[in-house]
C-alpha cells in the first residue's frame, strides 16, 4: 500500500505545483534574460511536453534520486534537501520524544487520579497548550530564555543547546493531544473487567496500571503519535524559520518566496513520503503492543 500512496502523493503535489504561473526558463534565468535563452532552457527542461510526459519524466528521475536543479542556485535539489534533512528529523524526533515522555505519564496520572487537583491542572495545561500557536510559544521562549535570561542561544543549530527551545516549541501541541488521548483511553481501560480481575487476584496497583492498563491503552496513543507527526512537521517548518535553523522547512519557506519550484516540490513530496513511511512503521509497532492484531492477520 505504501508505494501507490507515495505515487499518489507525488502526482497530487506535482499537479498542484504545476499550476503555478510562469515558465521554468524565465524563473531560473530572471527577468533580464533574453527571450531566446529562456526559450532554449524551456525546451531543454521539457516545458512544452504534455503534462503526463512531464510527470513521468519527473517520477523516473526522482526514483533515481534526481529531483532536478534549483532555479536559483543550480544546485541539485536532492543534495540541498539531503544536507538539511538531518536537522529537521532531529527536531521532529526530539519534539515527539518530549511530547511522549511528558504526555503519557501526565495522562496516566490524571486518569488514575480522576477529578483530583492533578487531573484538573493537567487538563487545563493541555487545553492551553492546544490553543497556543507554536510560533508564539517559540517567541515567548526566545524572549524569556534567550533574550532576558540568556540561557539558550537564539538562532543556529551548532550545539545541542540550540535544539532545546525549538523542540519544546514543536512539542507543545502534540503534548496536549497525547495527554488528552492517554487520559481518555486510560479511563476506559481502567473500567475493564480484566483490570478488576487483576485487582481481585491481588496484583500491586503499579503493576496493574503499567502492565494491564497502559499496554491496552497504548494503541490509540501510538496512533495519535503517528498522526500527529504530520502536524509536527508543520511545527518544524515554523520553528526552523523562527529559530533560523537550516532544515528542510526553512528551505521550503525560502523556496516559496523565491518561486524555486523544484525545491518546493521535492521537499513536500519527500516530507510527505517520510510521514507515510513512519505511519507504516507504526502499523508494524501495533502488532508488538497488541498481539491480537498480529493474530488477526494470520487467520
Amino acid at each position, binding site marked *: 500500500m505504501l508505494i501507490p*500512496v507515495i505515487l*499518489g*502523493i507525488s*502526482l*497530487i*503535489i506535482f499537479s*498542484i*505545483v*504545476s*499550476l*503555478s504561473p510562469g515558465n521554468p526558463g524565465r524563473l531560473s534565468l530572471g527577468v533580464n534574460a533574453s527571450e531566446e535563452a529562456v526559450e532554449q532552457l524551456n525546451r531543454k527542461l521539457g516545458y512544452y511536453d504534455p503534462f503526463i510526459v512531464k510527470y513521468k519524466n519527473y517520477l523516473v528521475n526522482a526514483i533515481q534520486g534526481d529531483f532536478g536543479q534549483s532555479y536559483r542556485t543550480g544546485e541539485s535539489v536532492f543534495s540541498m534537501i539531503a544536507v538539511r534533512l538531518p536537522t529537521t528529523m532531529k527536531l521532529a524526533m526530539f519534539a515527539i520524544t518530549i511530547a511522549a515522555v511528558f504526555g503519557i505519564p501526565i495522562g496516566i496520572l490524571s486518569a488514575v487520579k*480522576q477529578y483530583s487537583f492533578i487531573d484538573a491542572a493537567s487538563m487545563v495545561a493541555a*487545553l*492551553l497548550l*492546544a*490553543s*497556543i*500557536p*507554536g*510560533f*508564539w510559544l517559540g*517567541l*515567548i521562549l*526566545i*524572549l524569556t530564555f534567550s*533574550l532576558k535570561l540568556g540561557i539558550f542561544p537564539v538562532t543556529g543549530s551548532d550545539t545541542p543547546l540550540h535544539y532545546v527551545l525549538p523542540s519544546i516549541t514543536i512539542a507543545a501541541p502534540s503534548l496536549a493531544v497525547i495527554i488528552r488521548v492517554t487520559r481518555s483511553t486510560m*479511563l476506559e481501560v481502567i473500567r475493564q473487567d480484566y483490570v478488576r480481575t487483576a485487582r481481585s487476584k491481588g496484583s500491586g496497583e503499579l503493576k496493574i496500571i503499567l502492565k494491564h492498563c497502559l499496554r491496552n491503552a497504548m494503541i490509540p496513543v501510538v496512533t495519535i503519535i503517528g498522526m500527529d*507527526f*504530520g*502536524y509536527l*512537521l*508543520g511545527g518544524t*517548518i*515554523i520553528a526552523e*524559520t*523562527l529559530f533560523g535553523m537550516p532544515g528542510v522547512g526553512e528551505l*521550503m*519557506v525560502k*523556496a*516559496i*518566496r523565491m*518561486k524555486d*519550484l523544484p525545491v*518546493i*516540490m521535492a521537499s*513536500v513530496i519527500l*516530507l*510527505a513520503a517520510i*510521514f*507515510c513511511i513512519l505511519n507504516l512503521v507504526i502499523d508494524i509497532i501495533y502488532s508488538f503492543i497488541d498481539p491480537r492484531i498480529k493474530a488477526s492477520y494470520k487467520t
Partner: protein
Amino acid sequence: MDNNKESRTLWQGVWKRLRKNKLAVIGMVIFMVMLLVAVFADVIVDYEQDVIRQDSKIRLQEPSSEHWFGTDNYGRDIFARIIYGGRISIFIGLTTIAVSLIGGGLVGAIAGYYGGRLDNLLMRITDMFLAIPPILLAIAVIAAVGSGIMNLIIALCVSGMPGYARLFRATVLTLRSEEYIEASKAVGAKDRWIISRHIVPNAIGPIIVQATLGIANTIIAAASLSFVGLGIQPPDPEWGAMLSEGKEFMRYSPHTVIFPGIAIIMTVLALNLLGDGLRDALDPRLKN
C-alpha cells in the same frame, strides 16, 4: 407534529447541557464578543487613521491610556490592528470551514450514498490527500497560487476538505444502516422527509463539533503561515503577520508580540472550549 416536538427537545437538551458547562459558556461568550468586535471593527476603530497610517513619532510606545496595547514599529496602534486582525482571522476561519464543509460534505455524501465504484474512487483520492500532512498541502498550494487572503483560504480549504469528506461519508454510512431509517422507509416516508427529519438532525452534531474545532485550527494555521510570510502580507493587520513584524523588536518592546499572541490564544481557546462543550452536550455518554 410529534416528530417536530421531539427534534426540538433534542436541541433543548443539548442547550440545557451546554448551559450547565461553565467553560463552554465562557468559550461561547468570548467567541461571540470576538465575532461582534470583528463585524463592527470599523465602528470601533478608524481603519485609515489607526490601522494603516504610520507615524514615526510614536513608534514602539508602551501600552498607555491612549494606545491600550502600545504602538508598533510604524507607530500604528496595536489595539486597533488587533481588532481589524480579528476580522481577517475570523473571516478566514469561518470561510475556510464553510467551504471545506460544503465541498468535503458533497464528496463524502456522494461517496457514502452511492457506494460501490464511485465510493472507492473518491475515497482512494481522499486517502491520498489525507496522507499528506495538511500544512505541506497548504504550502504546495501557496507555492502554486501565491500569498494573499483568498489564496490562503484556497490553500486551507484544499488541506481541510479531505478530512470532512471522510467524516461525512462515515456519518452517511452509519446512518444509512440505522433501523429508524429503515422503519421510516418501510412506512413509506419520502427521501426528502428522511433526509430532513432523520439524517440531517442526527448527522449535524458531530459535524458542528468538528467545524467548531476546525475553525480554531484554521485560525492557528492561517496565523502560522502568515507568520513565516506565506499568508497575509503586511501592511494588512493579520495576527500572525503582526507577530512576524513585531518579533524584530520584541527584546525592548515585548508588547508587540504579546498582545497579538493573546488575541490568537483567546479566540482559539474560546473555540476549543465551545467545541469540547458541544461534544459533551451532544453525546452525554462520552462524559464519564
